């Protein structure tokens, strides 16, 4: 019986650890990243992952005509800067934050609805560390109402 309880105990510990990482990422997105969207309102979709320096992620999304959007790429403090580009479906670059000192936000409006790709990569650290640095990266989409005069 004791053996069984010990095995259960180990399993709880083993399964709780990855969940804690995911929860921390959600907490980070909610408490830190969401604030950066203001005065835009977060669309509510949760897109976040733990990335290690040098790793990349992509998001496919349709953005609608005449809506105001803010894309905010939010990375943990421990991570090096995040390089992101906005591409059209043919992968032509429409925006590159490298030209803007790796600014984490981009505000835009589309004249007609567009399917866009948000492509990001965590830069490699310039510091010579023993282990690669990992941290949470969230892609936040903000929307803003068009106030009619």
């Amino acid at each position: 019986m004791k053996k069984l309880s010990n095995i259960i105990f180990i399993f709880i510990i083993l399964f709780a650890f990855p969940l804690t990482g995911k929860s921390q990422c959600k907490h980070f997105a909610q408490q830190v990243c969401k604030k950066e969207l203001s005065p835009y309102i977060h669309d509510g979709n949760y897109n976040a992952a733990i990335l290690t320096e040098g790793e990349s992620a992509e998001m496919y999304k349709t953005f609608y005509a005449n809506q105001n959007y803010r894309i905010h790429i939010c990375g943990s403090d421990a991570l090096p800067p995040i390089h992101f580009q906005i591409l059209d479906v043919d992968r032509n670059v429409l925006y590159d934050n490298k030209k803007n000192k790796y600014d984490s936000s981009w505000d835009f409006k589309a004249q007609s609805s567009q399917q866009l790709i948000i492509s990001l990569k965590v830069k490699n650290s310039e510091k010579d560390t023993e282990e690669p640095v990992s941290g949470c990266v969230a892609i936040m989409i903000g929307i803003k109402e068009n106030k009619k005069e």
Partner: protein
Amino acid sequence: MNIQLSRNLFLLCLSILIISFSGCKKNKDDKKDKKSSEEVVKVDTIDKKLVKDVKAVKEMFYSMPSPLEVAMILKQAGKDYNPEILNPTKHTSKYVTNKSMALNLGVYTTDLSYSSLYDQTQTTIDYINAAKDMAEGLGMLHAIDEKTIDRLEANVNNRDVILDIISETIMNSSSFFKENDRQAVSTIVLIGGWVEGLYIATQLVGDTPTQNEIDDSELIARIADQKLALNTIIKLMEKNEDDKNIQSVMTQVKNLQKIYDKIEITSSKVVPVTDEETNVTTLKSETTISMTPEIYKQLKKKIEVIRKNFTS
């Protein structure tokens, strides 16, 4: 008892060590992989490099329009608010399976977002309660709790706070399912919300728009634009295609796609122009949508059928 406690502590330490070492090993392997792949790059052909670039993308996200975004699109189109077309809140007791609760959590969240954007105070409160019932049925006890409803009631005249509360409830539900490896449920919630948005939009347009109305209406243009979102939606469903609830929803979405395939959308090259003063970029491009009244009629009918399946 003390012996048992010490044994558990020992096991805890052992577990932490196992996890730490497995993490270290993975990192070392990653570094090793990184080094060896760098060497390979030198001799790669361009094609191989392209394959490697695609493989290097660790995470792929397919983002659907959220209920809040759908509601903003509806509001932007300038039509009057119509509560008659929403899914009645008294239907909550009908939804007892995980699939129906997930679909209608999405449906009610879109109705909630739509009502709030038109400052419909009581309806907004009613719909957040309906969404709460669905969330609780799916095991999310804290996504929408009494505090959320109290906060909403205390801020009924402050639209920014209400929208923030709605955004938070959508995020709570989407993150809850992802954290608990229930990605399929999260996708079904979003599809429910998206179909409700399409249903509201087509009901607001009416039964038989003329060709001129189709060509000039902003709302019909946004309905047609969903053709672009459909590819993303199907990719998202394919990530969980083993789930039987996803399979049944996918069949219906694919039937809808067959009608969307009849709509032609052509777009010119996108040119980004940034306003130096506001720092806002406008993506300039021209789009032409070709849809006949007959295709619109088929589309509206199919959306009605799917929505009926979801809400009955």
